[in-house]
């Protein structure tokens, strides 16, 4: 076979940007040839250890564990809701509004009916009815979000910003802004009781997280969610009903938010239009820290659990050291950035990733969309 050219000289191969010194590579390899999830687990464990060593007395005590277990569920549920919405490439900024509106409806129902029924069974029935109303309200709010996003095509961030204002507004109209009291005494178990040494709200969170995890990873619906989040156009061509997926996802969000609202209400023994407002951006932060890609298609329940734990360890630990809560905010932000950079350096040290060609027109399937 004839040669096109026979170069006389063959100079030394030139090195690409992968020519990192091997020492650095090895070091990065030590940080873990692991997945981002494992790395987050390591970071969470380190935070736990450091806090335990710094303040062993109040931090590493049963009392503190119980206290943290009571604090976690409500914002963990909200973070879970945000993660679920982010899987589709959307976001749900209305969760706090949904939570408060649902719990206000619940307390209205219970307050109205409780005096009219007698006996323990009657009270339990009223509580169940109140909870049902709240969950229904949450799902309906989610349905409204889903319709705005998939039928009217409003960008999720704006649709849920708008509906969130509306839900909070209706909550204000219903209550005039005041806190609504009047839960039957038994209702306090939801937020304040314990079962087998573990707080009831924690059981609720664990159960729901498990259900969401199963839905996402073990059902056809879950698979379709990830696919649609990756490329909505292709999912339409593959015969997936994007609208159907979106609606169900936002209904799940609304449902989770309503549960969070019920827990908050039980822990506060009241419902109010402005409870938990600070949780919104915090939940977004937790969801992202947990490895969720805000552009869709990537995110796992396990990541949320780890992110929630690390945030809580930091938060309680710093409270015990009497660190200003503003410093805590600073550290949360910094933690997010550090985790992302560590993940990145890890990716860089693996041979495959950089310059992955992202074909034009692809709606941002992976993290390289910035």
């Amino acid at each position, binding site marked *: *076979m004839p040669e096109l050219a026979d170069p006389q000289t063959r100079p030394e191969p030139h090195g690409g940007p992968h020519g990192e010194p091997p020492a650095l590579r090895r070091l990065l390899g030590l940080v873990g040839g692991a997945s981002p999830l494992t790395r987050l687990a390591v970071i969470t464990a380190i935070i736990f250890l450091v806090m335990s060593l710094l303040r062993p007395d109040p931090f590493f005590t049963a009392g503190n564990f119980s206290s943290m277990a009571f604090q976690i569920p409500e914002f963990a549920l909200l973070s879970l809701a945000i993660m679920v919405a982010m899987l589709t490439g959307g976001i749900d900024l209305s969760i706090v509004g949904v939570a408060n509106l649902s719990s206000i409806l619940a307390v209205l129902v219970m307050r109205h009916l409780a005096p009219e029924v007698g006996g323990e069974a009657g009270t339990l029935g009223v509580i169940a009815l109140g909870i049902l109303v709240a969950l229904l309200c949450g799902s309906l709010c989610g349905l409204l979000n889903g319709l705005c996003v998939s039928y009217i095509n409003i960008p999720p961030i704006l649709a849920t910003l708008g509906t969130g204002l509306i839900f909070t507004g209706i909550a204000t109209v219903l209550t005039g802004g005041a806190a609504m009291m009047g839960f039957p005494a038994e209702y306090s178990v939801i937020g304040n009781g314990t079962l087998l040494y573990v707080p009831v709200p924690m059981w609720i969170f664990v159960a729901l997280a498990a259900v969401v995890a199963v839905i996402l990873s073990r059902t*056809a619906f879950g*698979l*379709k969610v990830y696919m649609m989040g990756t490329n909505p156009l292709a999912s*339409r061509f593959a*015969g997936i009903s994007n609208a159907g997926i979106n609606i169900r996802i936002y209904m799940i969000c609304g449902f989770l938010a309503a549960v969070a609202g019920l827990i908050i209400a039980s822990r506060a023994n009241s419902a109010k239009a402005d409870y938990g407002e600070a949780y919104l951006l915090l939940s977004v932060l937790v969801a992202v820290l947990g490895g969720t890609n805000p552009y869709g298609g990537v995110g796992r329940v396990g990541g949320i659990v780890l992110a929630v734990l690390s945030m809580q360890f930091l938060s309680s630990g710093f409270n015990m050291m009497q660190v200003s809560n503003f410093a805590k905010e600073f550290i949360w932000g910094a933690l997010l950035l550090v985790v992302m950079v560590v993940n990145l350096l890890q990716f860089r040290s693996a041979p495959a990733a950089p*310059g992955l060609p992202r074909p034009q027109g692809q709606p941002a399937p992976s993290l390289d969309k910035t």
Partner: protein
Amino acid sequence: MTSPPLLDLIGLSKSFAGVRALDDVGFAIAKGEVVCLAGENGSGKSTLIKIVAGAQPADAGSIAIDGQVQRRWSPMDAVRAGIQVIFQDFALFPNLSVAENIALNQELSAGHRFINWKAVRAVARRGLERVGVDIPLDQTAETLPVADKQLVAIARALLSDARLIIMDEPTTALTEREVRHLLDIIRRLRDDGVSVLFVSHKLNEVFDVCDKIVVLRNGRRVAAGTAAEFDISSLTRHMTGRDIAAESHRRAAGADARELLRVEGLTKHGAFADIAFSLKAGEVLGITGLLGSGRTQLAKALFGLTPVDGGCIAVDGRPAAIASPQDAIAHGIGYVPEDRLTEGLFLSQPIAANIVVGTVDRHTGGGGLLDRHGLKAEARRWIDKLKVLTPSPDLPVQSLSGGNQQRVVLARWLATNPKILILNGPTVGVDVGSKAEIHAIVAGLADAGIGIIVISDDIPEILGACARILVMRAGRITDEVSGEVSADDLALRLAS
């Protein structure tokens, strides 16, 4: 003493996680030479081109321009060295106007800091004239049909005073007429002393314009020489390592075959009008036509992606209301879209998930949970059956080469076991070997009683596969020919 070659590639190697995409590949391109890079899907052609364009670094090897080995090699360096690339995925800006897409390149390399809109439009107009097409300058690229996008990408590359133009499958979305025009342009460029590196799976094009041919197989250079030293069968042999028989897979409907699909008076204003045809079980029906003749719109309408303004569709003799892809699927219709990157694939998701996404509902076991083993097995079966070249079904589908990606899309639809399958450009960007295999698969499906509609610009393909061919022009079916006509005859009818 001869002058050094314009471009000299020396021992280039490149690996992606587990895949050796290029292995010690080297060749040279002289001034005014048209070199063709041939090879099967995934043989490393696009990778090589990306390295030459500076878009990806090589693991080893070097690039020499005019005999000078380059130390730094970024896209800007490549442009400065006079290299222009028409990428397989076009690399256009969807949000910018056609004029900007064509002219920005120029403005950038001229080092301008400010924009002169008059100049931009003038440059763009000149570019389009060179390609010989007329596309509105102010239209945003996003809204262009694929073919126009490709033409814009070509215009952009031709404009610059490039010394070497690299074209990675520039003709995939083009019809006969544009292809001929492009080949003319390449010849003109050569006469002007511009070198061209050309990639195409349409071997007739290769022999039409190329002076030299370099063949890659599995990332290695397996052959190189002047075009005269090869013929179609030897080239095919080098590419695939075996002989490909040029057999016909043409399938006509049996006389007593059931009518699967009947379309009557189907109309969508501005796209197509009064479309009527029928499709029988076991038949492969071809639809061809010039660019923008309405074929894609028609296919999308049949699949429920585009609402129609009038007419009716009957499946299996019963009127079918098809308002969404779900309706279409419920009626047993499948659709392989023309643009696999944006419409067909979930690029960052695993290959297996891409294959089974259409059939997951069938793999739901007790309690509504997925039968994951069943799904894995199904994915593996299709990977084997369609010979998708990958180390693992769990890799993201973006790690596959273009042709293998196309097989994944096909596999997804075959897995749904459709009654009617619409294939829009089924072998776009697919190499000869795979093409033959895909054609055989299509024929096998027809034998199994599936009705198939093939939309294609590839005349040999459509003649090879279809017994009956509809020709569309300006949104109407203007002609119906049998698969027995000659290629030249069909080309003539298309152009007339």
